[in-house]
């Protein structure tokens, strides 16, 4: 692997830091203005709550949990991240980092009869907002937490040109894939081991098995490297033809493989395959709405427990910015529910990356979903549940639809109430 001299490493680190920082707009961190603006809004709601007691407007007297104020930084956009899948195909801008371009997608090409999807990933230290007005120094892949979502088709080669642009810390990328080459495991004891600041390495992984997977830094101390933000999602789309040939490999199912079972599995594979079957729509739907949600938490004060929990880093970002507790709510520019179309199949790639707590969970209001653990089965492992419990690194695919529901707000959140009240509280706005 290319190992650089210390001064070259320092120069590279500086360049990376500078170029990324320049690429990042609104490099203001938390400003007084933002806090002021936020407070103006929150003050209003607080007064509404207080005023209710005096003026008996019938509004909630209880106050309400939820963050005060609006998000300021534009470095990371959880709404852009939600539906961004990077296949390696060149794209000018990425929604997850506010529409900026960072060269993540480095090309798709054939090599030795295999499709190669190449990505340029850089580890970089960055302050990101985790609650309105609260920033935390994070360690990121390409300036975002969670890191960019990579998507490949089963059997593709994922080639990641990784550069450690951190100023101080050694990092790696460890994939939760069936990786057959120990040198590519991204751990201190194998291959290049940890990569010091300025060092780089090209990881190559075969995209298998089909499903939703996790990648993360495996440097020590592990808790710090994961909790500070070095994790992301890899989605591997199943190949319908392979499914047709070996359906058993893709099914948590022990009955006879009839033609109907085989066809159902193939249809499910096509539905899951966004790369080769982008226009495939399951019967009864207008489309598929795929979303990525990483459940994470942040310990801001070094007490070994999280002060903030979230789906996709920003606490309460998928919740109304304002609510009077009496059924009226308002969206804000940085905090609003996720728009969902009733006619779509909603598919959530859910990943559990919370440190310090043993488990996290996902609970839907007024809704039951099918759950595919790690997404490796094309038939649900559990059907018709409204809560699923995940340990660290556990992930799954959730499928649900709102065809029969009336339009409106539908909540989903961790059913650890503490996590919900500390930020992991979200909504779909169905229309």
């Amino acid at each position, binding site marked *: 692997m290319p190992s650089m001299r210390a001064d070259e490493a320092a120069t590279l680190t500086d360049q990376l830091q500078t170029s990324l920082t320049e690429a990042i707009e609104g490099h203001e961190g938390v400003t007084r203005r933002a806090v002021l603006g936020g407070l103006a809004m929150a003050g209003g709601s607080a007064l509404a709550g207080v005023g209710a007691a005096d003026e008996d407007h019938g509004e909630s007297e209880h106050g309400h949990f*939820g963050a005060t104020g609006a998000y300021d930084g534009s470095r990371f956009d959880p709404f852009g991240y939600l539906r961004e899948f990077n296949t390696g195909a060149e794209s000018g801008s990425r929604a997850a980092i506010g529409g900026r371009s960072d060269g993540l997608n480095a090309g798709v090409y054939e090599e030795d009869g295999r499709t190669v999807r190449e990505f340029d990933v850089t580890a970089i230290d960055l302050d990101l907002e985790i609650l309105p*007005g609260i*920033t935390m120094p994070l360690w990121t892949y390409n300036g975002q937490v969670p890191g960019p979502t990579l998507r490949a088709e089963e059997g593709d080669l994922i080639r990641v040109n990784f550069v450690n642009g951190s100023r101080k810390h050694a990092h790696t990328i460890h994939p939760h894939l069936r990786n057959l080459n120990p040198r590519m495991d991204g751990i201190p004891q194998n291959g290049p081991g940890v990569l010091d600041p300025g060092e780089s390495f090209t990881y190559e992984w075969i995209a298998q098995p089909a499903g939703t997977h996790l990648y993360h830094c495996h440097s020590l101390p592990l808790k710090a490297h994961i909790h500070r933000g070095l994790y992301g999602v890899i989605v591997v789309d199943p190949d319908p033809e392979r499914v047709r040939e070996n359906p058993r490999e893709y099914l948590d199912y022990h009955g006879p493989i009839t033609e109907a079972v085989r066809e159902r599995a193939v249809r499910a594979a096509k539905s899951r395959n966004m790369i080769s079957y982008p226009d495939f729509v399951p019967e009864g739907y207008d489309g598929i709405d795929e979303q990525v949600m990483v459940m994470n938490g942040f310990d801001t004060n070094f007490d070994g427990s999280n002060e903030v929990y979230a789906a996709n880093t920003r606490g309460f970002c998928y919740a109304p910015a304002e609510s009077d507790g009496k059924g009226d709510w308002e969206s804000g520019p940085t905090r609003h529910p996720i728009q969902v179309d009733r006619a779509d199949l909603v598919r959530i790639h859910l990943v559990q990356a919370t440190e310090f707590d043993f488990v996290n969970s996902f609970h839907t209001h007024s809704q039951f979903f099918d759950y595919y653990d790690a997404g490796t089965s094309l038939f649900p492992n559990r059907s018709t549940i409204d809560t699923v419990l995940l340990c660290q690194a556990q992930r799954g695919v959730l499928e649900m639809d709102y065809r029969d529901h009336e339009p409106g707000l539908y909540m989903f959140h961790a059913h650890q109430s503490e996590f919900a009240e500390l930020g992991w509280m979200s909504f779909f706005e169905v229309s």
Partner: protein
Amino acid sequence: MAGETSDRSDTFARPFGLPKWVIAVLPILLLAVLVGGFLVTSPLAGLASGGEPLPAVSIDYTTIPTGDQIRLHVTNNGPPVTIAQVQVDEAIWNFDITSPGRDAHLARGESATITIPYHWTPGWDYHISILTAGGVSFGTTIVAAQQTPAMTAQVIWTLGYVGFLVGVIPVALGMLWFPYLQSMRREHLHAVLAFSAGILGFLVFDAGFEAFEVAESVPSTYLGPLLVVLGILGAMLLLQAAMESRTGDEPSPLALAYAAALGIGLHNFAEGLAIGSAFALGRASLGAFLVVGFMIHNVTEGPVLVAPLAEGERPSLGHFVAIGALAGAPAIVGGWIGNLTQSPTLAALFLAIGVGALLQVVFDIGALVHRRGSIQRVPNLLAFGVGLVVMYATDLLIVL
């Protein structure tokens, strides 16, 4: 010789040939230049480790004004900081903040009030944290939440009544010993004065310890313990200076009585503060027992006030009323103020001033007895000790 003297005084009049005032301000000017130079050149840059001063926000006290509000009174004792979010029992909660700067950004030493709309339940504990923009948290626990009584006419009357009972009544009763004291022989009277000094001496420690205890809750930016030291010594010196300027060498008995009344008054004021803030914190289990305890405790203060007057001519009745009011009535005012604010800074300061005044009176009584007899006579020493013991015993009745 005369010439020499005048030469020297000329030298002193114009040192280095400069006007006196120039010499007087020269060191200050040099200091200013040095400080300016130090700030401009920052010679300590070599020591900089990249560390920044750590945020230090104190939650000084909490109030619960209504059934739907919790209020935090906070002070920023560290570098400028922004209060970004608030947690109640590990839930991010909305809040409103009022500060002199009208925002959540607190400069060093700036105080703010954070109001949290919250439907709390009486008797429950609440853990509240404030989070700065950097994610640092500062917490407090409200134990067994009770609503803070507002200053209604009812509360004013109740606190006034309690203050009258524990402050004015016992002092007045104690002063009724005056005719008896007048009839006493001088040695016995000295013993009574020594007894008074014992009483006050005990109060010095009683209030002194409390002052330092409260000082620990004072925002660190005000240097609580040193504030208490300043309060004690300052009050003592002020009172001493006042008495010196009024009476010359030997304090008149009347001045001494007034000084004692002031000291006891300040002490009773602090007692009033404690009662008022206990009331405000919803700990107003000021049952009959506690009120009786305070009365017995304070009735011993009466003879202290009048003992210095027992020798010689009896002052006019107006003086007695004034002395009694000065010693007793502050308990009422203290109750009201204590109910309005639970500021530990204020409480520590008043306690300290009271201690200083008491100390001064103890020394004065000691000096008085010493001049007219001897403080070291066995009956006097015993009486002093008895004063301490009586105060300890009655203190047991009023542990809040």
